[in-house]
């Protein structure tokens, strides 16, 4: 904190006659903001390395402790829940399947639909456009109960299909790709047609390679969105072996109720495990992610 804001003016007092208090204030605000975002998670991380008795007696811990390995091993490999069938590994696998399945499915399906809408002239084109874009209006949360009933009628409860496919039923991806395809220069299609490229050829050899950055950005956004789903998996999965990590958080809370000393350490370890993959992806691919988010405008 100090070396960023105050050290440099003090180190060269003659070169810079006055301390720029404005800048110091700016940095102070930014540092306070960064700490506000960081501290809660940091405390969770450090406290997750202590045993329950210590946490119960001493509260949240500000330094790393000796029991990290044990807590994380328990969170990852000990079978928990009511039926003792699910461990952290299994939930992580389910989260991965949900995140990847959702992101890939959504990208493939919405690219195809956007391609049809932008590049083809056909009857019902406008109607198809409106049918698809009406879905932007209503999030899954407002139609959870009937959606649940539909999935139940189809016998898809506790299946990956039932988990992933209903989440894909929204046009956000199609909307992104439509915007992007519209910005692709028209000359490309004309040139490709002169060279004799058909629609499949044009799509695979020209449009997909052109969209690479866009695909990467949408992939990150959708993966994080899928991984972080809570309400839908909570309703859909009663079989514990289908739980995702985020769904598993609720399970841990329910075990807390009535416990003398709740399993703080393992709960925090699970929270850290559940947030690590999406956080890493967002930080590592920051520029793509920000670009995708800002340019697609939702």
């Amino acid at each position, binding site marked *: 904190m100090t070396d960023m804001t105050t050290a440099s003016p003090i180190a060269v007092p003659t070169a810079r006659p006055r301390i720029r208090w404005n800048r110091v204030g*700016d*940095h102070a*605000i*930014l540092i306070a*903001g960064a700490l506000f*975002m960081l501290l*809660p998670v940091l*405390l969770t991380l450090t406290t997750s390395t202590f045993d329950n008795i210590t946490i*119960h007696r001493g509260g*949240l811990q500000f330094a790393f402790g000796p029991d990290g390995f044990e807590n994380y091993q328990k969170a990852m490999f000990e079978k928990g829940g009511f039926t003792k069938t699910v461990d952290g590994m299994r939930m992580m696998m389910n989260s991965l399947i949900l995140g990847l399945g959702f992101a890939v499915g959504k990208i493939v*399906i919405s690219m*195809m*639909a956007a*391609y*049809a*809408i932008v*590049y*083809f*002239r*056909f009857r019902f084109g406008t109607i198809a456009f409106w049918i*698809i874009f009406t*879905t932007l*209006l*209503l*999030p899954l*949360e*407002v139609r*959870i*109960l*009937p959606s649940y*009933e*539909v999935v139940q009628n189809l016998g898809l409860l506790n299946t990956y299909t039932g988990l992933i*496919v209903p989440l*894909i*039923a*929204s*046009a956000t991806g*199609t909307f992104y790709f439509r915007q992007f395809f*519209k910005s692709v220069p028209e000359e490309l299609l*004309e040139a490709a047609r002169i060279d004799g490229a058909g*629609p499949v050829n044009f799509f695979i050899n020209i449009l997909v390679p052109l969209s690479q950055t866009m695909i990467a950005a949408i992939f990150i956004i959708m993966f994080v969105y899928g991984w*972080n789903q*809570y*309400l839908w998996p909570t309703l859909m999965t009663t079989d514990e072996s289908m739980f995702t990590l*985020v769904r598993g*958080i*609720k399970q841990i809370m*329910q075990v*807390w*109720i009535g416990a003398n000393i709740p399993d703080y350490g393992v709960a925090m370890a699970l*929270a850290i495990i*559940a947030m690590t993959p999406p*956080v890493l992806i*967002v*930080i590592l691919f*920051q520029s793509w992610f*920000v670009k995708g*988010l*800002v340019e697609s405008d*939702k």
Partner: protein
Amino acid sequence: MKRAQFSRPLFPYLLLVPQLSIIAVFFYWPAAEAIRGSFFLEDPFGFGSTFVGFDNYYDAVTGSEYLNTARFTLVFTALVAFFSLALALLLAVKADIVLRGAKTYRTLLMWVYAIAPPVAGLIGILLFDQSIGPITDLAGLFGYELKLGVNYWDTAFAMVLVSVWKQIPINFIFFLAGLQSIPRPVREAAMIDNPSGLSRFFTITFPLLAPTGFFLLIINITYALFDTFGILDILFKGEPANNPITLVYKVFLDGFRGNDLGGSSAQSVILMVLVLVLTVFQFRFMERRVHYN
């Protein structure tokens, strides 16, 4: 639409089949079911249902519980949207000015975007825990006994705090992008005309950011209404009891716990109309923005 297009009779339909069939089964069918169900009184034991017209709507809207929930949702949404937008704007303005460490600040202020709402809720519950929570301890220092999950207002405070924390990053990203897209000549001219930082912000920067702000306002309203479900559900450990809840949470409670299918459907439809109005508003505004750019 493109001027140059393919004209194949069948191919575009093939491309559209996956999207359209998913939407038909998992969007239009449930939406239609919700509307249909909202006009019926369903027997909780599954012995058929009776048509009751607008009774479900009438019961929902006139129930004191519903009105309380609606009032709370309104206040909650306003608080979450206001604080997360204001804090994010302040941070974005500062992050746009500083040169040293700009990238680090950007990362530190946006990464929380990736944390799932229920995970944020779990962290919140730890911070507000009766025996180990530092925020509870802090309140204790001032002689206030904070009781998350027991005291209505304490729970409401925790809900707002966690929801704001979780929403700052996305607002920050959009505000910063908006600020950085203000052309350099405009900034320099503003600098010369108006050297005072605060009044420059309100006369130049703020109006130029208004489109971003409006877009974000809608996003934040939608967030507070729907995406906070996970935060709430974890914060009161799945047992809302006397704690404040939002409208979406009530749809879930009445439908899945209370088995009041008709009432829950009617509430769903009311929410649908609300979102519809918001989105139409947003679309019209976005179109206008595109025009004048």
